[in-house]
């Protein structure tokens, strides 16, 4: 088992020659692989070595974004991280805002946090559902994907689209809260709180799930730190780190919330921490809807550039239209980095501007890419049937890792 501390030299030392091992190519068209290939060396039923081969859905998002106007990168980054669209959008816009020097008004900050937390719940439900089908429980899969629906409906009500919202723009957000949103959100949150108890009975505390996940895929705290694992997987190993606390953005400095951490770092902890984070997100959404400040939803720098037709629209329909600045945006030369805690972990952006109409260097790292060491390190020593457990528990999403 993975009791030993990770050592980089192990990668070379594993002897994989000879007929002793069965080499399984799991993927890229396999029910348990996603859009990737996992090459597994098996000694009987025990995994000796795992080589994740990613890149099957590499969509050259960095290349494309470096050859487009700044605003056009928003849909690109969203489509890479489909379950976490708002976070990808937010991370990119935060970086651009740092370059531009724009600070959005408080109401926009709260709305950003609101839609980000709704998105986090859908992302965790997505992860729990995929974990369910990997262990063979179609019920949890269907339940989790069904329960995404009320939250996606909320996103649809607020932003006009279900998944690819493109809601956050430099300087603010595109739409204000519609009428009846608060009541609907409260109903949905109460529904979800009730459902979490049912999930506990049929999934989290199910003896079969406990047998399958407890002490499977242990990632120790030291390993989690040295391998640079992110998000709920990091916190399940006992590291107290969350970008929302340590590099606060949007409305998070004003919100009261906890960062759940676990001790053991096994698959069961990684499952539990997602459930706990859903509870925290519910708590945060309530706070946001209660404390939502009045005011503009877009920074004055943007608002002042709106023409009279757009201003009329802003007053009547609570809708921010784009001034021509959005197309011809040329952030001053410089570099900026930003981190955002998405549902699966931390998104990192590094953008270099030369004052041109395209970004000079557009670099971003997605959480799933940084969770790749789970395959090479954690899966070794387990049984073949534990590979889907580990895969599902880290909530790995291949298109996101490939970018």
């Amino acid at each position, binding site marked *: 088992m993975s009791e030993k501390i*990770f050592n*980089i*030299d192990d*990668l*070379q030392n594993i002897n994989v020659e000879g007929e002793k091992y069965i080499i399984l190519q799991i993927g890229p068209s396999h029910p348990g692989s996603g859009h990737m290939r996992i090459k597994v060396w098996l000694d009987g039923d025990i995994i000796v070595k795992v080589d994740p081969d*990613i*890149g099957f859905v*590499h969509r*050259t998002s*960095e*290349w494309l974004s470096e050859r487009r106007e700044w605003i056009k990168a928003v849909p690109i980054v969203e489509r890479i991280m489909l379950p976490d669209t708002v976070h990808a959008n937010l991370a990119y816009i935060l970086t651009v805002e*740092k370059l531009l020097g724009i600070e959005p008004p408080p109401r926009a900050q709260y709305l950003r946090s609101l839609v980000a937390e709704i998105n986090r719940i859908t992302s965790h439900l997505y992860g729990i559902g995929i974990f369910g089908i990997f262990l063979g429980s179609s019920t949890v899969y269907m339940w989790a994907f069904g329960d995404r629906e009320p939250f996606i409906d909320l996103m649809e009500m607020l932003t006009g689209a279900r998944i690819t919202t493109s809601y956050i723009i430099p300087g603010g957000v595109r739409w204000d809260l519609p009428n009846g949103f608060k009541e609907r959100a409260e109903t949905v949150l109460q529904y979800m709180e009730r459902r979490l108890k049912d999930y506990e009975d049929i999934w989290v505390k199910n003896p079969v799930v406990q047998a399958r996940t407890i002490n499977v895929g242990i990632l120790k705290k030291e390993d*989690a*730190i*040295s*391998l*640079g694992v992110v998000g709920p997987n*990091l916190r399940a190993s006992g*590291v107290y*780190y969350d970008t929302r606390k*340590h*590099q606060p953005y949007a409305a998070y400095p004003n919100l009261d919330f906890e960062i759940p951490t676990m001790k053991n770092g096994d698959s069961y902890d990684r499952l539990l921490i997602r459930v706990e984070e859903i509870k925290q997100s519910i708590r945060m959404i309530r706070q946001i809807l209660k404390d939502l400040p009045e005011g503009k939803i877009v920074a004055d720098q943007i608002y002042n550039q709106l023409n009279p037709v757009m201003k009329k629209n802003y007053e009547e329909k609570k809708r921010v239209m784009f001034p021509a600045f959005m197309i011809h945006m040329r952030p001053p030369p410089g*570099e*900026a*980095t930003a*981190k955002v805690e998405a549902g699966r972990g*931390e998104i*990192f952006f*590094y953008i*270099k501007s030369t004052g041109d109409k395209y970004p*000079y*260097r557009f*670099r*971003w*790292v997605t959480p799933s*890419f*940084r969770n*790749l*060491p789970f395959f090479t390190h954690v899966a070794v020593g387990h049984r073949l049937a534990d590979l889907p457990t580990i895969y599902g528990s880290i909530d790995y999403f291949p298109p996101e890792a*490939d970018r």
Partner: protein
Amino acid sequence: MNIKDELLKISTNVVIDEKKAHYKILIEDPAKLLDAASTLKNLGFDHVVSVTGVDYPDKVEVIWHVSSYSVEDLKGINLALTFSVKKPEPVNHNEAQGNLAGKRPPVTVPSLVKIWPSAIFNEREAFEMFGIIFEGHPDLRYLMLPEDFYETWPMRKDFTYQRAKVFIE
């Protein structure tokens, strides 16, 4: 601990913008890179967030963005450890060199995987995208590109691609 002083001990060329959480160390000498990385790791920067290159007409800049999970004061800092390397002169295509040959020869920098194991996949990506050979990396293969990708280093600025001309309805 004043982070600025500590960083200045490593290199004189330090850019700090606390408001944007933008910290940058520039290192010129390849011999000092490993020392600088070890010092940073001892300071508490325990993992690599991203390894990337930036392609300039005459040089390639390699950036290790590092951050900390273990030291409370450093958790809010994104530090860019930057190392510039001059591009070698373009050489003609040489079959014997296989994949790595072509008009855009690769550059060589020391690998920091031994210090930060979290850089392992990141360095593989920087290798295939920018043609940065990380010396000492245990497993330097293409990560996302297919094994037989013939046009090397797609993220360099002079990379062009052929639009598909056939349109099938």
